């Protein structure tokens, strides 16, 4: 039995991944030539595997690493007099939980986006939805460099503009990449914003429940 799946054309997963046109340089080009990236994506048919293993996974690992390094060096700075430092074990647990949550958020967003596609007449392949969510999440991953100094307010100040950039990419890019009309794209993007807002607030809820269970900072509950 083969370890990796073989596609209909006989190519192995990794061979297919090499042949894809998506590359990490996409993230850089997104910053300067978003429309060119959208046009390119609209004519390609990337596989879900390639987007996930070549791009998304590595982008997803960036924020937890920055968060880990920042919290180790400077502690969590919530605006009070002294920062909160954590033992390394706790920091690893928090970072891993952060990574897994981002991963879950990425995959679930792509699946929800694919589920919505038929309603809004958009492309249906999972790979292109993975690519779209990667495009939208990329500015946030770049902005997460601010996790290196985990002062919460400063993080918010930096992440708000990157969030606006992400939303711009979503509204502008979705109709092009997923090949639907601008109006239906606008409706689909707004529906996705609804899901992403729910996902964001769920992240907050899960976080505070974990704190209450003794995972993370020591709180008097």
């Amino acid at each position, binding site marked *: 039995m083969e370890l990796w799946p073989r596609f209909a054309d006989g190519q192995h997963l990794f061979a297919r991944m090499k042949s894809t046109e998506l590359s990490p340089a996409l993230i850089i080009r997104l910053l300067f030539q978003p429309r060119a990236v959208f046009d390119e994506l609209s004519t390609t048919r990337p596989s879900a595997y390639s987007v996930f293993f070549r791009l998304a996974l590595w982008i997803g690992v960036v924020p937890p690493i920055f968060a880990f390094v920042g919290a180790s060096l400077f502690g969590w700075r*919530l*605006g*009070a*007099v*002294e920062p*909160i430092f954590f033992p390394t074990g706790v920091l690893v647990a928090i970072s891993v939980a952060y990574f897994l949550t981002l991963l879950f958020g990425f995959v679930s967003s792509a699946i929800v986006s694919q589920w919505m596609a038929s*309603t*809004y007449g958009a492309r249906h392949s999972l790979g292109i939805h993975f690519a779209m969510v990667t495009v939208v999440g990329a500015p946030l991953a770049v902005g997460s460099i601010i996790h290196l100094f985990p002062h*919460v*307010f400063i993080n*918010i*100040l930096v992440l*708000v503009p990157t*969030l*606006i950039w992400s939303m711009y990419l979503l509204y502008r890019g979705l109709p092009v990449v997923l090949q639907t*009309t601008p*109006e*239906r794209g*606008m*409706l689909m993007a*707004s*529906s996705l*914003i*609804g*899901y992403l*807002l*729910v996902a964001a*607030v*769920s992240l*907050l*809820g899960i*976080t*505070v*429940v974990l*704190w*209450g*269970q003794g995972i993370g*900072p*020591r*709180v*008097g*509950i």
Partner: protein
Amino acid sequence: MSETAEYYRDRVVTALVMFSIIWAVLGMLAGVYVAAELVWPQLDFGQPWLSYGRLRTLHTNGIVFGFGVSALMATAFYSVQRTSHVPLFAPRLAWVVCYAWQLVVLVGGISLLMGVNASKEYAELEWPFDIAITLAWVGFAVVFFGTIATRRIKPIYVSNWFYGGLIIVIAMLHIVNSLAIPVTLTKSYSLFPGAQDAIVQWWYGHNAVGFLLTGGFLGMMYYFLPKQAERPIWSYRLSIVAFWAFTYSYIWAGPHHLHYNAIPEWVQSLGMVMSLILLAPSWATMINGIMTVSTASEKLKTDPALKFIVLALAFYGLATFEGPMMAIRSVNVISHFTEWTIGHVHSGALGWNALITFGTFYFMVPRLAGRPLHSVKLANIHFWLALAGVMLYILAMWGAGVSQGLLWLSLDELGELRFSFTDIMASTAPYYLLRLVGGTIFLAGAVLMAFNLYMTMAGQATVRVSPPSVAAGEAAA
């Protein structure tokens, strides 16, 4: 035929829309001012009437009762005539209700600035105002249900169920929660003692959110969304099921405001469980709205109003998910008494209530004026200002709230609280500044709308529209 001589009584609708817009601008201005006071406390200039405690209640009352209820009355009067194919029942009473309500909000607002306060959240007005509110509300009920009773179409459209639910439940809540023993003209004491008073207060408070800010505005959505999309509602059956599920489950949810307080634990648990159940009818309604609009995307090319309603549905989804989540005791233990709650309220009030009302007004006013909207471009700018404003507001309050929750409960090596209250408040100031920026952007959008709608309506008399014939009505039904 006699029907052709009749026309819908829309002048009162126009008046209520205009009052609602005035209260929106004034109420939001008060909100921006109190937000600025949290950054620069000296902005009260030593004047009691400019203090945070008084202006904050003016803000909430101005928005909920001035902006919100005036909008609900306007849209209820507009839609009940068109879904019943008859003019308003007792149109003069409708005018009395319109002006009486504005007088209550105006004089009530002045009383709040003077420091007259019943000390119950969202029910701060003292007993003379409570009586005036009751009388005006009964007038509202007579006009609305009178119109339903004289309808020419047998089915009662779902928007009217929500408006009807709003009128009946708010009457019940207001009367019970306002039961008090007057001592002087400006002071009364609640009839309920201690913890019972708290339970009654939050039975009122949460259901004011439920049946006024949610149910009433759902009535608005169920009429105006299909009208704007020019499509029937995606699933009428789902809308009716959601209405009854919503009505049954909402009424129990109030005790989640009193987690870890001096009320029985089983009451807290009941409030929590019913809050979680509430997610089902809330999201059923959201899906119904989104699916209705999903087939009418071409309307977005020409209609700026529809965008507001689509985005309002997204924020409705957020707020109705966040609320039940925060009602879970293990989340609430950290979120309660923090700015997270304020963020949650505003994701509902700005994201849902205000946006759906803006969208509805952009739809209604050109039709009332009988000419196109003054500027579609300004409406589109308003859309992006509203989105940016509400997002900044929510993100600032999420950051502030979670930080506060953690700092308040954070322990040092000896198991003592690590941070003092004043330290934590000082640490929150930057978030307050960010919130002020978000609120100001949102207010700027509302001012643009006020100008745009004023220019649309200026110099125009309200268009007279006649009900269709009975036969056409039955066909439409």
